[in-house]
C-alpha cells in the first residue's frame, strides 16, 4: 500500500461542481421572489405587473444554475 496516501476520494467532480453552482442562484431566486412578495404586499393592486417582473428576474438568475447543470455534460 502506498504509504504517502492517507485518504482517497473517487468519483465524478462534476456533481460537486453543480452543487456549488446552485448555491448562488438558489439564494438569488429566493431574494427575487421574496422582494416580489414584499412589493405585492405593500401594493396589492400591482400584483400582475410585479409577478411578471418576478418571473423575468427568476429567468435571469436561474440561467446560471442551468448552465451549471449543462457544464457537467459538456466538460466530461
Amino acid at each position, binding site marked *: 500500500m502506498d504509504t504517502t496516501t492517507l485518504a482517497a476520494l473517487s468519483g465524478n467532480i462534476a456533481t460537486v461542481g453543480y452543487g456549488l453552482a446552485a448555491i448562488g442562484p438558489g439564494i438569488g431566486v429566493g431574494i427575487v421572489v421574496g422582494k416580489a412578495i414584499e412589493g405585492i404586499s405593500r401594493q396589492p393592486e400591482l400584483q400582475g405587473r410585479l409577478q411578471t417582473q418576478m*418571473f*423575468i428576474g427568476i429567468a435571469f438568475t436561474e*440561467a446560471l444554475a*442551468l448552465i451549471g*447543470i449543462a457544464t457537467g455534460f459538456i466538460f466530461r
Partner: protein
Amino acid sequence: MERALLHHALTQISMAAEDGGFHAPTIDEFFPPIVLFEGTPFALNRIMLIRLAVMVVLVLFVVLGTRALRLVPTRMSSIVEFPFDFVRKNIAYEVLGEHDGKRFLPLITTIFFLVIGMNVTSIIPGLNIAGTSVIGLPLLLAVIAWVVFIYAGLKKNGAGFLKASLFPPGVPKPLYLLLTPIEFLSTFILRPVTLTLRLTMNMLVGHLLLVLFFSATWFFFFQQGPNGFSLFGLGTLAFGAAFTLFELFVAALQAYIFALLTAVYIQLSLAEEH
C-alpha cells in the same frame, strides 16, 4: 398506480441484479431501445412513441372538445375551454395586452398545451417518462420562441430593435464595451438556451427521482430479503407517492413558465423605448 411504477423499476433492476446490489437509474433511462423503423431517420423508441401518442390525444382533445360551440358553455365544454381561457387571460393578455396578445395567442396556446401534455406523461403509469425529458422537443419550442421574439422586435422597430437591446440607453459610452457583449449573450443566446434547459432538466430530474424512489422501494422490500431494512422501503414508497404529486405540480408549473416567458420575451421586444 405504484404497482405499475414498481413494475417499471423492476425492468431496470432485474436485469442487473446478479450481484445483489442496488442499481440507481442512469442517464441511459432516457435512451431506451429502438422499437420501430430501426436504421432509418424515423427510428422510434419509447419516448418518441409517447410524444406521438400525446400529439394524437391533444389533437383529439381540441377537435372533439370544440365541436359544438355554444354561447353559454355546457359543463363539458367549460372543462375544455378552461385552459384556453387561462392562457388567453392570464398569460397572453396579462403580459402583452389585448392587441399583441391576440396576435401571438396561437403560439402561446400551442406551447402551453404541448408542454403540459408532454410533461404529464411522466406520472402516468405505463408511460412513466415525459416527452419533454429529452432535449429535442424543448429545443424545438425554444427555437420557435426565439425566432418569434426576434421577428416581433425586428418587425416593430427594424434595426432599432437591435440597437435598443444591445445598446441600452442611459449608459455612459465607455461602459458599452463591457455591456454590449453581456447584453448580446443574455438576450440572444441565453434566452433560448435557458428555456430549453429549464424544461428538460426539470423533467429529467423528476423522472430520475421517481425511478430512484420506486426502485429503492423494490430493492428494500424484495431484493434484499424481508429484514429490518425493509422498513426503509415504506419510507421510500411514501416519498415516491408524495413526489408523484409534486411532479404533477411541476409539470403544470413548467408549462406555465415556458408560455409566460415566451410572452414576456415578446413583450420585451415590443416594448417602446423610453
